[in-house]
């Protein structure tokens, strides 16, 4: 029987893969996409908790909806940023951006 822990471990694995992607991508676009993966892992967690731990009310599921909204907003803005970056600079790889250099 599939239990809660199965889902949690799967979500943790997806999260760590996404994190690896965020850390190692040279392309801003890939970073954005990997962040989506992180959010999805969290969503999976919430949905699983909602079903297994607090089945009386759909609180966890409603949080998934909110997260999806945030993700949609985030991806819209991030992609606009990618486009702007692409247009205003000739820098392609984000590990070349060092405006924050101390």
């Amino acid at each position, binding site marked *: 029987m599939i239990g809660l822990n199965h889902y949690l471990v799967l979500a943790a694995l997806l999260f760590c893969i996404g*994190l690896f992607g*965020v*850390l190692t991508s040279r392309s801003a676009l890939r970073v954005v996409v990997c962040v989506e993966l992180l959010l999805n892992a969290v969503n999976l967690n919430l949905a699983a908790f909602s079903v297994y731990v607090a089945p009386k009310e759909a609180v966890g599921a409603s949080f998934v909806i909110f997260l999806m909204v945030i993700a949609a907003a985030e991806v819209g803005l991030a992609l606009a940023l990618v486009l702007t970056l692409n247009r205003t600079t000739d820098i392609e790889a*984000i590990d070349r*951006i060092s*405006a*924050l*250099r*101390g």
Partner: protein
Amino acid sequence: MTPLEHAWVLPLLPLAVFVFVLATGRRLPELVAPVLGIVATGTVFLASLGMLAATAAGSVADISVPWFSAGSVTVEIGIRVDPLAAVMVAVVSFVSTLVQLYSIGYLHGEERFRWFYGAISLFTAAMLGVVLANGWLLMYMCWELMGLASYLLIGFWYEKGDAPAAAMKAFIVTRIGDVGFALALVLIWLNTGTFTFEPVFAAVEHGSWAGPTLAAAALLLFAGAMGKSAQFPLHVWLPDAMAGPTPGSALIHAATMVAAGVYLVARSFPLFEASPSTLMVVGVVGTITAVMGALIALAQNDIKKVLAYSTISQLGYMFLALGTGNWVAAIFHLMTHAFFKALLFLGAGSVIHATKTQDLHELGGLWRKMPATTVTWCLGALSLAGIPPLAGFWSKDEILLSALHTDQYGFLLAGVVTAALTAFYMARTTFLAFFVKPGAHSQSAHAHEAPWVMTVPLVVLAALAVLVGLVGSPVTGYAFGSFLGEHAKAHAEVLLPAIAVGVALAGIALAWSSYLKHVPEPDRYFRARFVSGVLARSFLIDELYENVIVRPLMATSALLRRIDHAVIDGVVRAFGVIGLFVGGVLARFDRAGIDGAVDGMATSVSSGGEQVRRIQNGNVQTYLLLLVASIVVLVVVFAR
């Protein structure tokens, strides 16, 4: 709900003005911003009169609403309207209203005219929040907002000269103190589980919270107060803060915000009372600051700098009063100081507006050109010098008496010395700016009296600088003290006030003979040449003063100023220098490695340096990597 419980609306009025000004920007007609700001703070002032009446009748409002709850913890914020809060609201809104009126004239034609009103409104809202808060949490939040408003106003002319650096300095130095405040919040929460004043005071009174953590919390709160109120050694930001527009300085860096530290200690007084050693610390810091500020003010040639150091000194006076355990005297002096110092700053602003200079040696003889400014300035200066029956006399007297009654003769002596010095430097400034014959560099020739929007606030403030002291004088039976809930103490002393007035008069006389009777050459008092010749005989008294009193004082003052700049700024700077040094060492490692690349050893150093340098390479992903690494370490260490 009683009317008092609606007081939470008051800070929102100026806040609404701020938001409105921010949102409309240039589309707003020029004069709408001041009208809105003045209407908002004027309304608050009228309401505060009602609050004064209601609290005098004995009603107090203290309401809390839950802000948020996490698990079993509920954090509440709320407001408290009691006599202390009512007094502060009245002072803040009144001075703010006058300053805004005055600024219409002072900042007329300024490019960011509306923005000034936005920032002043933000400040007023935050300050009202601080004084109305019924707990340290809300107070802290508004406290930080006040810091932001102060930063914005110091940096108002951000394209000119030192303003950005001064703004940054003010923000960072006060932040050092605010770390203390934040830590105090943590201690208060850990020990009492609430941020609200009343339950915490009850816990302190019942002894359920006592011991070193209580003293530590009090001292940390005092650290916050020291930062905001420019107390030694965190006073260095205030003189630089004079880079902002003068009306802003009058409101924020003289009358109200810098006094918030005094208010904080007065408000948290039960915490301090519970551990006498903390009170002693407060008093000693206040004393050092009072004397030091007054000494440095002696040697300043910038009219605003004199007032800035004078403010530092007077704030020290208030902390001295707190140190003697008499918070009523501190608040009384805070109130009178707010009026006469705002008056002096606005007067200085009027002078600067008319002559476009702040240098005392480029002024002089202004009394013919600017009679209204001169008269009101003199009233303010006399009040500050503590001449009866002006306001400053009563509040200063109260502080000295309280030092006498608690047998703290060190504080008493310092208080008297400061009073003398204060009288001297104020008289000196007054004579140099308004009464001496204009020198060769004087800019006074084309000076003219300020427009009515600027003189009316001066006159109103001057009236208050004369009269407001009476509320704490025997004439009204020490109404102020009993209003704040302290019983009037025995005030049978005549000798001490007489001594205080005597030394103040002596200071004025000394300044008169040094600066007015014999017109000094510019900066003569810094070279202080011994003039030879028979004619010099008639100057013997002056020379005596000069060599025995003035010169050592000047030297001490210059020395203190140098210490001020070298040591205290140095300590602040040292942190930066250490950072630079470490960076330099690392960079040298790096360079050495690259130069000696042939060497195997050097190559490893090089890559080592490169690795270390990579920490600060501006690459977001590397930062993120470090973040993740830290999280992993924390998880591994702290998770079960």
